[in-house]
């Protein structure tokens, strides 16, 4: 006799935080790794924080630019959006006067690449936090 088919129901991870998925995502956006830390995944949180903040710092040290939101230049707008996915580091860098962009340095484009990629990688980290929070991923 065939067994009845059962539709799998997403089950939140036992390590999941009591915080809402939105709160966890906001934390992960503001501080890289904070979302995983709140979910009890300390090792992953430390790796994300160290690597992503490190990438951002290297990008600034390479003379990369913190791009403004300028709708007239779509690529500049997208670069700014990517950089702002790294909430707190981007805010601190802006308030500290970093990221003017040194276009004549040989590492200028590398710096931009590090800054933008760090933000985009944090976007993936935020999505992972969301998936873990709703039980889509364990």
């Amino acid at each position, binding site marked *: 006799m065939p067994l009845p088919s059962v539709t799998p129901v997403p089950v939140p991870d036992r390590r999941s935080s009591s915080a809402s998925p939105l709160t966890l995502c906001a934390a992960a956006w503001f501080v890289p790794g904070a979302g995983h830390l709140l979910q009890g995944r300390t090792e992953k949180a430390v790796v994300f924080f160290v690597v992503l903040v490190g990438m951002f710092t290297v990008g600034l040290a390479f003379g990369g630019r913190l791009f403004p939101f300028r709708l007239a230049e779509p690529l500049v707008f997208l670069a700014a959006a990517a950089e702002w996915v790294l909430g707190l580091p981007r805010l601190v860098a802006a308030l500290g006067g970093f990221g003017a962009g040194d276009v004549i340095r040989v590492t200028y484009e590398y710096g931009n690449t590090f800054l933008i990629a760090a933000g985009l*990688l944090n976007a993936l980290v935020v999505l992972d936090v969301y998936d873990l929070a709703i039980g889509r991923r364990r």
Partner: protein
Amino acid sequence: MAVHLSAMALFAAAVAVVFGVLVHDAPRDQVRLAVRIFGGLVVGAYLVGWLMIGLYG
């Protein structure tokens, strides 16, 4: 040359570590994926670099 190479290697390493830790939970799987991604990025950059020299150099 050294700046370009070290910057590329550093970028590849950072991306590889993030993807490895993001995708897998077991440390062994994380390291394995990170090494594969790092190798793919560095070798890919070399191949594209030589291709560009062949086309435009």
